[in-house]
């Protein structure tokens, strides 16, 4: 059975082919990263993931990603620890508490945070945030809590801690705006039911609204994590860029490195094939982490919004 060559069929087929561009982008990227990193994985195997050494000297090359994987996890962890409570507070304020004429400008300001290019966060990080963090957070933490390994060392300002702080600021618009949508999707009948048995506004939010939107908020947090893991420029500019065993995040107050900042710093200057392959391998690991995170977030968020669609219609 052959379809007739009508305008409609041509339109549908052409649009369908163009729409495959997303698939092509994914496949090309995956292909480039996998073929590009076979060299380094073939040479070092799994120790590429678990070793801390980074030695590009010819004849004695060793490459290991462990410090940068840990650096990525630690900076993203700090970002979530600080950014998520703030974002939830903002979302709750916007959905449950603010009068309408405050809501619009505030949500606009929060969205503007997302519009600022990452390289400008970095510039601000180097010349402004760094000193503020150093004097108001790092020095006091080091003085009073320096016996905790994470806060030991000599605070300098361009380190893992500052990178975490800047990431915390950068994930706020993502986490806050998705959580806001999740909270707005909670049906009013839930709130009314809770009020009717005498709960205060905060109790309604804490025990009913937040638990109803639990999975969506979890999705928002994971989306924020995805942002933090992949963020490159701002982190590269403030993290101090250590390599090798020095980059292991043994304390927050020393220069570190994440997977994206490692690539941003070294990829273009790496002269030989093996080193280039090591950077591509770092990209592959980063991509794998990012895809897993985003697929998880995708299912959590869309599942919730489907429930919302069902309730509305």
């Amino acid at each position: 059975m052959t379809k007739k060559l009508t305008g409609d069929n041509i339109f549908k087929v052409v649009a369908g082919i163009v729409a495959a561009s997303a698939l092509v982008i994914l496949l090309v990227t995956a292909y480039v990263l996998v073929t590009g990193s076979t060299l380094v994985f073939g040479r070092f195997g799994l120790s590429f993931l678990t070793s801390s050494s980074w030695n590009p000297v010819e004849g004695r090359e060793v490459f290991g990603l462990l410090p940068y994987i840990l650096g990525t996890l630690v900076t993203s962890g700090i970002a979530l620890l600080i950014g998520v409570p703030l974002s939830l507070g903002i979302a709750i304020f916007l959905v449950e508490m603010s009068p309408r004429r405050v809501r619009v400008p505030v949500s606009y300001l929060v969205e503007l945070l997302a519009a600022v290019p990452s390289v400008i966060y970095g510039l601000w990080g180097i010349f402004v945030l760094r000193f503020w963090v150093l004097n108001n957070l790092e020095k006091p933490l080091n003085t009073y809590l320096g016996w905790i390994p994470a806060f030991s060392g000599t605070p300098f300002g361009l380190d893992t801690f500052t990178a975490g702080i800047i990431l915390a600021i950068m994930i706020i618009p993502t986490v806050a705006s998705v959580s806001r949508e999740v909270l707005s999707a909670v049906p009013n009948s839930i709130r009314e039911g809770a009020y009717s048995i005498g709960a205060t506004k905060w109790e309604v939010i804490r025990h009913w609204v937040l638990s109803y939107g639990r999975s969506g908020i979890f999705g928002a947090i994971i989306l924020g994590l995805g942002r933090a893991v992949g963020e490159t420029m701002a982190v590269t500019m403030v993290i101090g860029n250590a390599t090798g065993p020095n980059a292991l995040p043994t304390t927050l107050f020393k220069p570190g490195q994440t997977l994206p900042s490692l690539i941003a710093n070294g990829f273009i200057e790496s002269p030989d094939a093996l080193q280039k392959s090591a950077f591509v391998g770092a990209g592959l690991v980063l991509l794998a982490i990012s895809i897993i995170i985003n697929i998880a977030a995708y299912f959590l968020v869309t599942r919730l919004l489907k429930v919302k669609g069902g309730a509305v219609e």
Partner: protein
Amino acid sequence: MMNSYGFRRFKNRFFFVLCMVCVIVAVVPLLSILFEVIARGASQINWKFLTENSLLGGIGPAIQGTLIIIGLTSVVGIPIGVLSGVYLAEFGQNKYASVLRTISDVLTEFPSIVVGITAFSVIIVGVTKTYSPLAGAFALSFILIPIVARTTEESLKLVPNSSREAALALGAHKWRSTISVVLPSARSGLVTGTLLAVSRIAGETAPLLFTILGNNYFFQGFNQPMDALPLRIFSNSRQPSPELQAQAWGAALILILIVLALNVGVRLASRGKLRG
């Protein structure tokens, strides 16, 4: 009593204030960034700074490069993105489309540095053999296409089905109804979404590091490195010279003006004339 009404009232108050504090804590960095960029950048801005090449202390090549890269990326990325979105919205009730939709969602959150590696390996190693604005546009369109596709789909879905049915009832073909009825009705959403996507790639830096590299001179052809504002900010911020650092702030001011103009303009436009 921990559960007395008074204590519960106090807790209610306390968390209300706490949430307000969260908002303030989030807005302070934004205001600080805007303030610093304006305060430190404005003193740099003069005619020479905007038009000379970088060896003479200007950011002319960076401004020109950013406009070129935005233009190239838009020319490639917007038509592909919009047509993909049309497919997803108008013919998207099948397995193939839902797979593409998921992939697009994942792609919008791709780490941009990875896209830089891809463009380097495919375009520079494979095709041009030199750093090239084309490779930069290629990388940025990887970021632009999925965003435009998804926002197009979302805005087309808002067009009521009765409009489509009315067009079909008048005897129009599906393609005709899509082009003449559905797309024009969704134009406000389309313009808004597309411009927001463009404003996002305007500030994108990481993929440009490996593709256009940076240059002190004005555009020199499609087989030569090119400058761009984000690259200029990044490289100057790492220089020890206070003059170059000050230039980074000037460049940041211009970049943020471009990005904010796109953002704010879009919001004003979508609230005003374009809607309806």
